């Protein structure tokens, strides 16, 4: 009798896992409302394209995608995350454009024992003290990109720098990052109200009066467009050259082009990815993305696309056994999936160790504005917080 009961329970358990395992549920948290929804839409497009390229399947499992809106607010993002974890019982939570949203939401995912894949945000705590075995990034740690820019500034021989950035988690990391590698003098820093401040007249006047040789800014999303225009209207191009990270992207370039804002051509910034990087995965991604949606993908899209392939590599490594967390973790840690940025590895904190390139805005072959790679700034660069992470 006892055996029978055990057997029945075992059979039921098996049946239920088999039933559950028919699909892999992925929750994707991004911004679908407010003006920042333009980024969310780009990510959503990339994720849908990734699923299409996979034929809707990861191994034998069907992909069940659930998009959730963070409303550009940490609190709303956390609520959306809670719902994905508690209500939809997803296997993976991916996405997160904004550092403060990720910081607010991470605990909900990790406490529930699920995997958390950041497709953009890389605030310093999750790379350092708050690193977690179930957290992976398909993007970068916030400090890395501005560190690369600091290096570029050194190579260009810039001696003094004025820094303007928004006052939130990522903005602070960006400033810290550029200060980390820039060898000259930082003559002034302005942190502006985020995300409401879009008029930078006071800050630009200060930057100009400071007599710095260069101006470093970080303004993602629509603030980036606003900043670029005001910089141009202030006529600072010759006296105070501009160096940016995450401020000009494939989302703002078509707008600039429509407005014939030619000053943007030739502006340079650092990044871990570019649409011209020469690998099979990237070529297919960029070509199909353009065919499907009619514009170049942004880096947000590229990372979102990667995040889904990263998850696929984990699911396939354990042959669809989603209970095998260790197996999936090991598979992701090996970063053996085809990334659009080319091969990279993971550090002990599950942040990418990867190349950083200097990109420049150019008119593409068909006239649409895009970017090209000028040079490689860093090869195999690791973020500075890895040493604070207790994981090995």
């Amino acid at each position, binding site marked *: 009798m006892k055996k029978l009961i055990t057997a029945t329970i075992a059979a039921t358990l098996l049946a239920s896992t088999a039933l559950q395992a028919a699909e892999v549920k992925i929750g994707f948290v991004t911004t679908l409302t407010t003006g920042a929804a333009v980024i969310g839409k780009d990510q959503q497009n990339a994720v849908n394209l990734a699923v299409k390229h996979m034929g809707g399947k990861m191994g034998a499992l069907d992909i069940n995608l659930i998009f959730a809106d963070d409303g550009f*607010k940490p*609190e709303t993002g956390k609520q959306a995350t809670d719902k994905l974890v508690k209500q939809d019982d997803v296997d993976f939570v991916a996405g997160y454009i904004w550092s*403060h949203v990720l910081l607010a939401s991470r*605990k909900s995912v990790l406490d529930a024992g699920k995997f958390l894949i950041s497709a953009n945000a890389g605030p310093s705590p999750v790379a350092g003290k708050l690193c977690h075995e179930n957290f992976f990034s398909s993007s970068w740690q916030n400090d890395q990109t501005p560190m690369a820019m600091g290096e570029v500034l050194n190579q260009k021989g810039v001696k003094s720098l004025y820094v303007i950035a928004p*006052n939130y988690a990522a903005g602070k990391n960006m400033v810290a990052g550029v200060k980390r590698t820039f060898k000259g003098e930082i003559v002034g820093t302005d942190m502006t109200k985020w995300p409401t401040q879009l008029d930078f007249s006071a800050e630009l006047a200060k930057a100009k009066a400071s007599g710095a040789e260069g101006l470093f800014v970080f303004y993602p999303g629509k603030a980036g467009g606003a900043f670029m225009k005001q910089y141009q209207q202030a006529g600072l191009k010759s006296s105070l050259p501009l160096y940016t990270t995450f401020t000009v992207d494939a989302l703002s370039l078509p707008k600039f082009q429509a407005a014939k804002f030619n000053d943007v051509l030739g502006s340079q910034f650092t990044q871990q990815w570019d649409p011209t990087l020469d690998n099979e995965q990237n070529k297919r991604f960029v070509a199909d993305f353009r065919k499907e949606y009619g514009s170049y993908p942004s880096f947000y899209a590229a990372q979102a696309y990667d995040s889904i392939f990263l998850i696929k590599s984990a699911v396939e490594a354990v042959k669809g056994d989603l209970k095998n967390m260790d197996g999936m973790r090991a598979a992701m840690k090996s970063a053996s999936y085809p990334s659009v940025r080319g091969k990279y590895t993971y550090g002990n904190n599950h942040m990418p160790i990867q190349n950083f390139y200097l990109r420049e805005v150019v008119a593409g072959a068909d006239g649409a504005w895009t970017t090209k790679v000028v040079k490689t700034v860093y090869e195999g660069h690791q973020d500075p917080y890895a040493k604070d992470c207790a994981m090995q």
Partner: protein
Amino acid sequence: MNIIGKITIAGMLILAIVPPVLLLSGQAFYMDLATRLVILGIGAVSLNLILGFGGMVSFGHAAFIGLGAYAVGIPAYHATYGEFEMVASYNGLFHIALAVGFSALFALFTGAISLRTKGVYFIMITMAFGQMAYYFFLSLDVYGGDDGLTIDVRSELPLINLDSPMQLYGLSYVSLLIAMLLVNRIVNSRFGMVLQGTKGNAERMATLGYNTYYYQLLAYVISGAMCGYAGFLLGNFTTFISPDMMHWTRSGELMFMVILGGASTALGPILGSSLFILLEEILSSFTIYWHLPFGLLLILVVLFIRGGLMGLFKSKSGELK
């Protein structure tokens, strides 16, 4: 018992039974929803005391919720990460004392100034004080500023474990009941009569020899303190706090809850908060453009429904206030 009383009791019974049953049947998310609704219900009940019964339209009430939440977050932060040992503590009673105390103080200070003004000026000055609180916490780099503050350890209370969703809900529900009874007692006391009389005709009350300013100020302070307590619960519930909780749009939402359900009724604010949260949840699951129908509904309620949902019941029962 009249129909309003019956509906009130029925509503409170539903809130007592349905969410725990949902939790036990594995629907943890709906329990979350219910907890949020009950906690915001306390905030709405407190606002109703001054808005509904006192005629003081406070457009900055979300500030008290935020103050209460930070009264949990800041001591817990220092208890976890050190420094500033004077306040470092996980003790929930201490958090409650801080939440209620600071909210009352803030209400006393801002109320004393705001109540010098009337009408639209009052609406706008309370909003200004709310925004001040919002920007104040935005400026505190130590506690995350704009990024908000994650509460790693919930408040520790005797006999109650707030980590258990059921117990947290239980505490919130009982608190809501107490808040409703408290408001009921206040409204029906001599103090409450003067308060309502002031709403109707301040000059008459003044000629009758009442110093209406102090009556209104006391009501404002009580309301702020209650709302601060709701903030204590909300902080423990979300385990994440950010200045966003104090933004003027949040104050607007609280006002809407009160009006939607029916101001100056006992159950109104709770009906309002329930409907608000459920609608938000349901509409946003259909479309990302859910603000459109939501806004339309708001306009329609204001234009066509006198006295909110409770008003509907009243007119049905043919009973006038």
